[in-house]
């Protein structure tokens, strides 16, 4: 192989990787940069740097209201989906029952269905049943599509749990409640937290299913969709950028703690 060939073989992939990451980050950088733009009517052309949009986030009250709505929906749907999904995950690993494969299929199908079908289906159901659309129907819908992801995430954790730890608890005369709260639950907690974070992220960014089932109720993504026709206010960029940085910090912190725990275990 020629020297040029060897050079390419060695560095082509890293160079490609850097370019690929730049490509992936372009729209993120764009959104963040334009949260600092001086805006007159539209936020398309760059007019100069300002912090006004960050200090006056709630100048456009609908942006803040829709953001608050998204948080409420995300928290309630996450709590419901995490509770229902964790119970299913434990049952799937720990118990033998009939309709097991049917249950697995029922959990798989919502993840394999296009969102527009899930959204239209729920909307058709609510329409037939005469249920008015609003925050309630949005929470019901979000809980539904989060359950499968919770089960998938928590199930792996339950399967990795050593049953001997719970047996030891029972041998020491712990009641079933004590075994659950003092042994099983703390050991499952990292999986449950990961599942809850995933649920919240899915709920917070969902647009398609929400659009079919929200009526006049406004979530943050729905606000952006409607505002996109006449131009997005820079306050929307501010909120999205803030959420981006918070999510990034959460991920980095969780990765660092995992790394630290692994190091501690390796040493001990």
């Amino acid at each position: 192989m020629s020297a040029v060939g060897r050079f390419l073989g060695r560095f082509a992939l890293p160079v490609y990787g850097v370019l690929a990451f730049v490509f992936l980050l372009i729209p993120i950088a764009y959104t963040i940069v334009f949260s600092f733009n001086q805006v007159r009517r539209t936020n398309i052309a760059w007019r100069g740097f300002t912090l006004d949009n960050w200090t006056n986030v709630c100048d456009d009250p609908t942006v803040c209201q829709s953001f608050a709505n998204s948080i409420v929906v995300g928290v309630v749907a996450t709590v419901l989906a995490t509770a229902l999904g964790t119970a299913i995950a434990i049952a799937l690993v720990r118990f033998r029952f009939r309709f097991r494969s049917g249950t697995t299929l029922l959990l798989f199908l919502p993840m394999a269905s296009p969102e527009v079908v899930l959204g239209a289906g729920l909307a058709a159901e609510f329409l037939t049943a005469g249920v008015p659309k609003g925050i309630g129907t949005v929470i019901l819908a979000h809980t539904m599509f989060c359950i499968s992801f919770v089960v998938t995430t928590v199930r792996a954790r339950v399967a990795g749990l050593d049953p001997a730890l719970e047996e030891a608890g029972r041998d020491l005369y712990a009641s079933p409640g004590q075994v659950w709260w003092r042994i099983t639950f703390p050991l499952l907690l990292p999986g449950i937290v990961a599942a809850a974070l995933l649920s919240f992220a899915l709920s917070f960014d969902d647009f398609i299913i929400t659009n079919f089932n929200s009526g006049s109720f406004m979530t943050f993504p729905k606000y952006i969709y409607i505002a996109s026709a006449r131009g997005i206010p820079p306050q929307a960029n501010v909120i999205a950028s803030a959420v981006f940085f918070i999510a990034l910090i959460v991920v980095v912190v969780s990765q660092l703690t995992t790394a630290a725990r692994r190091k501690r275990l390796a040493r001990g």
Partner: protein
Amino acid sequence: MAFGAFATTAAQSQAEDAPRRRSWVALVLLLPGIAYLALFFLVPLVSLVLTSFNAPGPSGAMGDYVPGFEWSNYVTVVSMYGEHIIRSFLYALLATAFALLFSYPLAYLLGVRLRRFPLVQALGVTLVIAPFFISFLLRTLAWKAILSDEGPVSTALHALSLLGSDDHITGTPFSVVFGLTYNFIPFMTLPIYTSLERLDLRYVEAGGDLYAGPVQTFLRVTLPLSLPGVVSGSLLTFIPAAGDYVNASSTFLGGTGTQMVGNVIEANFLSLQNYPAAAAMSIILMAIILVLVGVYVARSGTKDLV
């Protein structure tokens, strides 16, 4: 990712030893969640099927429909929107192919070449999922601004005369496929990365020891071993791309000639209130996806998906 987690053998063997007499506990754990999914996933699907056969109501008013058995609804939507159905699957297929071409080298870099540098690897994975942290709609609008007539890309291409003065980038099939590809890249990269990260490099060395060239080793060893990741990545990209209507919407990257099935369902359900047409289109979309996914999974030979 999500798809691979359904193949747990450890879970199954544990369940074999599980005590049977406490099955009422299993029932208590399962019943609320399963009932929830039955009520808000299965019943809606049945509800869609029923709605798709509805007939116009006696008043003839907009949105007024009565239960019926109108097979003709399906004939009507296929003749009206056949073009949209073909376009959706074509766009989704192209986006899946481009996302695969983009993701495989990146996943290989992260999962194999960067294995000796765990911190860089973790940083890389975080960067791949970083687009998830910013609103899907704002990301797409950012691309719209960048690719728009006043944006840097169009200006540069006009200056180089590569783009005629009447040509646009946004509002074309190109920008829709571009948007779909960009938005679903992380769904493709992560499962492939997961497969490649678990790849035992001794197999690759063995290929070299047996006088296979780098290309042959890749095609006969690395690629087959990473196939489960490629299959789940393709499904995780293809399914949402086929049903997407944000990218193709004319206020985002699409135009009048790029409408997909999702746009048809949205317009019929939410604006025209033609619920039977929207329901029939949903059933058609779901049916085609299930058939395509079934064939793809069967042909790629990875049975451990469900």
